[in-house]
């Protein structure tokens, strides 16, 4: 039977118990001091301080051990963590029994503290383990009070606090022990039944999540398959249209040329859309990034060359500014170049003739910042929350350019986030848009790689 919590939470709970024990040790010392000095209770002060010191040393050793096991990124096995927790709880029961022995035994109201350990065991450990802990507590505490009662162990009376002689009253001792036992077992029963219900619920959620992920994967594979087939047909259509449109089979009249041209343009647009969707879906289906050092400088120049043609056709000025030190960075070059091309073509597309697009690439601490600023139509406030969503296009973008996939920015975000970077939008102070993204310059740590 598993615990309610997963291993990482169990490890943090092991540390949590250590922290609580510091407080308990401090509490014990303060209570001993207060009770003996101010309340006039007679206590074997030396023994109690000695216990405090022993527990202090024990806790320090435990802390060291935990640190040793959890150093680096590696976690101890679930079994080992569980073992540590069981040991801690059992050891605490011994410690508490020892403290009670030196501070009045059955006369000390701190005996209720056994309840805490029952609750902790029931949540952190299995049902079986929890009942074992309850039994251990009953045996330890029962043994203590019975032995003190019949004189097998010395009894330290709490003179000045509780009526002495109570520990020798067998009716009281057995009555108390009975209630004590019932209470501990009931706590374990109630707590484990609730925590087990929670655990089942959690398992159901995990199962449902796994199913959702599987369904999403099936959906993506379906999209990929359908798109791939459509793309094959469209490529053939376009090739045939190229032949007619290029007048390779004889000249066309103006009407024919017009309509074949339209068919050609629509097919091209459709292919662009299919291509973008294929790229995005493929990326969603491949789990990990195939990151390696690649020449960012070359990617930037390739992307610029591609966008430059489009910018020239449209009389948009495209300029760039790059840190001279920019060269190799870590990531998947093909994807980064695609992202750059997307952003640059977008900027050119939504910038009216005479406007300008500026690309800036520079180091910023341990990452590379890439900014594409334009003097185009900008993004209205209302479109901002959905800007990077798949298939979303802002109203003004739709009005300015009928054709567009609504996938370019979604793709860019996927790529950037997979690299452990960030992409965002700002208004260009002079009007227009600024899209910026960061990429880690060096190898990614495992924590920053997404998914």
């Amino acid at each position: 039977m598993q615990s309610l919590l997963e291993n990482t939470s169990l490890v943090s709970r092991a540390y949590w118990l250590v922290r609580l024990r510091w407080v308990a040790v401090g509490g014990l010392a303060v209570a001993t001091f207060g009770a003996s000095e101010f309340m006039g209770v007679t206590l074997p002060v030396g023994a109690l301080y000695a216990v405090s010191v022993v527990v202090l040393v024990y806790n320090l050793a435990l802390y060291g051990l935990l640190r040793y096991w959890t150093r680096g990124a590696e976690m101890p096995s679930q079994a080992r963590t569980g073992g540590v927790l069981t040991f801690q709880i059992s050891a605490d029961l011994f410690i508490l029994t020892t403290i009670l022995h030196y501070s009045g035994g059955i006369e000390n109201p701190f005996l209720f503290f056994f309840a805490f350990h029952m609750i902790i065991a029931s949540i952190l450990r299995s049902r079986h383990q929890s009942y074992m802990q309850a039994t251990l507590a009953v045996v330890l505490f029962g043994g203590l009070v019975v032995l003190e009662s019949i004189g097998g162990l010395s009894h330290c009376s709490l003179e000045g606090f509780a009526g002495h002689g109570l520990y020798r009253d067998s009716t009281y001792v057995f009555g108390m022990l009975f209630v004590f036992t019932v209470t501990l077992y009931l706590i374990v029963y109630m707590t484990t039944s609730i925590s087990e219900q929670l655990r089942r619920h959690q398992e159901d959620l995990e199962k449902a999540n796994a199913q959702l992920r599987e369904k999403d994967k099936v959906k993506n594979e379906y999209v990929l398959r359908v798109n791939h087939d459509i793309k094959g047909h469209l490529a053939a259509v376009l090739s045939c249209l190229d032949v007619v449109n290029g007048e390779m089979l004889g000249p066309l009249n103006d009407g024919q040329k017009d309509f074949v041209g339209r068919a050609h343009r629509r097919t091209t647009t459709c292919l662009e859309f299919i291509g973008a969707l294929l790229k995005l879906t493929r990326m969603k289906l491949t789990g990990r990034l195939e990151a390696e050092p690649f020449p960012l400088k070359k990617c930037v120049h390739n992307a610029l060359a591609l966008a430059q043609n489009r910018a020239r056709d449209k009389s948009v000025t495209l300029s760039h500014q790059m840190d001279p030190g920019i060269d190799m960075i870590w990531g998947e070059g093909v994807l980064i170049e695609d992202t750059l091309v997307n952003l640059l073509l977008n900027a050119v597309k939504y910038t009216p003739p005479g406007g300008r697009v500026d690309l800036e690439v520079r180091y910023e601490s341990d990452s590379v910042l890439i900014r594409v600023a334009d003097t185009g139509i900008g993004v209205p406030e209302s479109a901002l929350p959905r800007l990077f969503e798949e298939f979303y296009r802002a109203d003004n973008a739709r009005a300015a350019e009928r054709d567009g996939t609504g996938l370019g920015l979604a793709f860019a975000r996927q790529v950037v986030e997979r690299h452990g970077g960030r992409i965002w939008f700002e208004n260009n102070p002079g009007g227009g848009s600024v899209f910026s993204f960061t990429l880690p310059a060096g190898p990614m740590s495992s924590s920053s790689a997404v998914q």
Partner: protein
Amino acid sequence: MRQGRILVIDDDPDITDAMSVILENKGYEVRIAHDSDQGRERLKEAKPDLIILDVMMRTSQEGFEFSREVKQDEQFKDIPILMLTGVKEKKGIDFKSAAGDKSWLPVDGFLDKPVKPNVLIEKVQDLLSSPKA
């Protein structure tokens, strides 16, 4: 005027037919094959100056395998191969090894599908005029 003879291998007949019109229009002589077996036959009988090869035919590997086969044949190893790829296929190709290790993927050029006629012609001219390895 004999510009050169080109063997086009693609399993899509619409693509091969369109491509042959585009190439013939520029004065090339075109032979067509729709799979590796036909490709092998045409190769022997036509002795082309260039092969245009689709990366994906019946299986996703057929194009690769065919190109390797051609380059291992003493008789044909000097014929340049232009490979047509899609994005997906491209991702599967390790371009560093493709450039550095000719025996692994022995092709002389790549073009993305669908190919624009002028881009195709440019690449074909380029490959036919470059000195043979």
